């Protein structure tokens, strides 16, 4: 047996296998995922595994290495989130999201830290030696909402789009603040004296970290888009570029002590539009599937390791401190959301209702990021206390809040996601409204959001698309893209239903030479006929088209971990239609 030789990859594969088998196991019982969110079940499995290992070896099981978490497990999840982020609602609410992410997190950090410091002053709890600085450090890592946990829970409850994007966007963007504060307090711990100059440097650093992350991300994103311009002849490695550039942007940002999460999101959002135009359909599917797969595996592994790491001798159970930590986390988050929403509602027409506010406050879940950060703390005699407190907070938020949020959403009748299929008509209307509002803003001389959006679009079409798109001469509007997508689905449906290859179903209506199926050439000829302004022809066409039953299949939400919009293998006929239609468009 040469176990030593293969040990490392073997064990890694075994863990991943365990994670995937656990996932299958949950979905075998249909009722289970609806009551208990998956993250809880995975932590539970982790707890069992940890217990087994502890029992067998009689020492603490391997704790999740922070490096492994930050370098390997976190990026796929954030990339998946950023790539499939619906950009329209995100940018429409960007002000609110930034307010929650930046001001809200700072509020939470200082609130929690100072209250805990107050608790430490009470003699009875034996916490005198935990200094203010230690509390600040602890506060900075426990205050931030975790995107992994939020994703895992919110994915299953389908609240309305705006609410989802607020919580989710906040959890992603608060990384910049967390990074700065954590590193700041950490460096303060090591410095003998702290001058006010250092504090100001810290504030300035925040802007550097955030904006720097965005810049790094965007530059990698545009480079990726540029690279895919030339991949026409080597389609097979196209998906690789998407992943390589995103990962590089994350690593580069981390290298410069900037926010890696912000960088990878900026990269994904920046490159998505151009890359999708450049790469082939198959590559596109590959990218989607791989991203979902990797983020799924990462997600599962993180929660299992969380469970495993809980067992062991890493903890110092000072219950007063721990309980107060949990209480303060909840209280300060609720207060923060209330105060900030009050300000936001003064300036916005579309107010955030109190139900929504409750869900935002309640959805402030902590997860693996705090866990890893606490292990990265420098060794001092109270570290185990912090580890214990972090573990309890995470377990509390994931189990208690995660499990009860769905019944609460039902109970409060929070506005749910609108379950309707995208229609071409809606796209047309929204675009029409965009242009109308931009025009009105121009006429009234006001530089509002539509004005800037218009300007950005103009810049995009004049300069960016020329450089980054391969087939520049065919820029596609979102209306056209959606229409193509729906047409494809329609063609696939027809192929599946076996309607291709049959002759026209109603020869009597062939009068002007119409065909009710998808033979492109015939339809084109008929449209030329229609140019003769024959009203009968127009009526006929409407009838035939209506009879064709242009059914639109539902697409699932883009950010669902488990399912992708069903795409089956098109038959040969459908492929032919696609090619013909594609040439036409």
């Amino acid at each position, binding site marked *: 047996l040469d176990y030593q030789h293969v040990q490392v990859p073997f064990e890694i594969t075994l863990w991943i296998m365990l994670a995937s088998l656990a996932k299958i196991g949950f979905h075998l019982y249909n009722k289970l995922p609806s009551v208990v969110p998956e993250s809880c079940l995975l932590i539970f499995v982790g707890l069992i595994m940890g217990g087994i290992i502890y029992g067998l070896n009689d020492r603490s099981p391997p704790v999740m290495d922070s490096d492994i978490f930050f370098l390997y497990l976190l990026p796929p999840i954030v990339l998946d989130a950023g790539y499939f982020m619906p950009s329209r609602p995100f940018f429409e609410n960007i002000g609110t999201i930034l307010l929650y992410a930046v001001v809200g997190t700072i509020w939470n950090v200082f609130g929690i830290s100072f209250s805990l410091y107050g608790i430490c002053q009470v003699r009875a709890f034996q916490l005198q030696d935990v200094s203010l600085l230690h509390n600040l450090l602890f506060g900075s890592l426990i205050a931030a909402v975790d995107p992994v946990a939020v994703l895992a829970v919110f994915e299953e409850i389908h609240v309305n789009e705006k609410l989802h994007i607020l919580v989710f966007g906040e959890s992603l963007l608060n990384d910049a603040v967390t990074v700065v504060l954590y590193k700041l307090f950490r460096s303060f711990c090591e410095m003998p004296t702290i001058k006010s100059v250092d504090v100001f440097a810290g504030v300035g650093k925040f802007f550097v970290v955030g904006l720097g992350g965005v810049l790094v991300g965007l530059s990698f994103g545009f480079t990726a888009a540029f690279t895919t311009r030339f991949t026409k002849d080597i389609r097979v490695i196209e998906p690789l570029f998407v992943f390589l550039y995103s990962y590089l942007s994350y690593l580069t940002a981390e290298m410069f002590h900037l926010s890696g999460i912000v960088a990878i999101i900026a990269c994904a959002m920046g490159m998505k539009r151009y890359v999708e135009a450049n790469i082939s359909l198959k590559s596109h599917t590959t990218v989607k599937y791989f991203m979902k797969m990797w983020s799924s595996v990462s997600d599962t592994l993180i929660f299992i390791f969380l469970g495993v790491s809980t067992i062991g001798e890493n903890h110092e159970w000072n219950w007063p401190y721990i309980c107060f930590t949990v209480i303060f986390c909840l209280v300060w988050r609720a207060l923060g959301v209330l105060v900030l929403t009050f300000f936001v509602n003064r300036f916005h027409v579309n107010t955030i209702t109190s139900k929504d506010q409750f869900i935002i406050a309640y959805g402030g879940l902590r997860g693996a990021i705090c866990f890893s950060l606490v292990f990265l703390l420098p060794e001092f005699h109270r570290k185990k206390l912090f580890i214990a407190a972090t573990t309890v907070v995470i377990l509390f938020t994931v189990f208690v809040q995660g499990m009860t949020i769905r019944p609460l959403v039902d109970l409060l009748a929070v506005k749910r996601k609108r379950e309707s299929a995208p*229609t*071409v008509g809606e796209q047309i209307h929204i675009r029409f409204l965009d242009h109308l*509002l931009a*025009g009105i803003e*121009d*006429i*009234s001389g006001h530089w509002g959001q539509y004005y800037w959006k218009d300007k950005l679009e103009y810049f995009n079409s004049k300069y960016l698309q020329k450089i980054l798109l391969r087939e520049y001469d065919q820029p596609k509007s979102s209306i056209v893209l959606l229409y193509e997508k729906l047409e494809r689905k329609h063609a696939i449906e027809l192929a599946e239903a076996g309607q291709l290859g049959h002759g026209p179903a109603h020869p009597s209506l062939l009068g002007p030479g119409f065909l009710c199926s998808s033979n492109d050439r015939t339809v084109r000829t008929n449209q030329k006929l229609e140019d003769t302004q024959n009203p009968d022809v127009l*009526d006929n066409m*409407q009838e035939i088209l209506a009879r064709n039953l242009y059914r639109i299949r539902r697409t699932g939400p883009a950010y669902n971990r488990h399912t992708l919009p069903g795409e089956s293998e098109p038959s040969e006929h459908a492929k032919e239609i696609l090619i013909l239609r594609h040439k036409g468009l």
Partner: protein
Amino acid sequence: LEVSQGAQPPIPSLLSPTVTSEQIEHLHRRFKQLSQDQLTIRKENFDSIPDLEFNPIRGKIVHAFFDKRNLRQESDGLADEINFEDFLTIMSYFRPIEMNMDEEQLDRFRKEKLKFLFHMYDSDHDGKITLQEYRNVVEELLSGNPHLEKESARSIADGAMMEAASICVGQMGPDQVYEGITFEDFLKMWQGIDIETKMHVRFLNMETIAHCY
């Protein structure tokens, strides 16, 4: 209603109390700029706005300002020139929603805005959006892409029309002909989009800031 230069213009009744005098001042200044200090604006005056040139539906927007149906006059057709009161009337379609509106006011508010949009789509003023008019809209929207063929814009419009038919009429019988989208159908189509919050120009929201002081 005479609007004298420089004096405070009277607020048309339909706008009070939602539009403050500051906003009226601002719009009045803009009106004077556009009309080159005349009392009325003609279509040609809109050419002086440089950014409007790149707007694909420019023609429809300008047309909407002169459309008598939007100016709340009983007559139909196009006006040749509009004065400041008419200008304000059109702008009032883009005022934001208020906190204290009840159900009925909200419904009227929404219908007003959708009526404005409907008039923009329905260019021949016959109360219906026909297939040809819809095609026209889509062609204009996609006119920014010089290489997109006219036929593709047409098939997109056809597809959208069929969707509209299926929403408004449901399953059509073999001999039924869908003539065009009436205003009731139009309302149905926009049910999913919350136009009360989307269709407004932000600067008209200054009243909330004014109330803060």
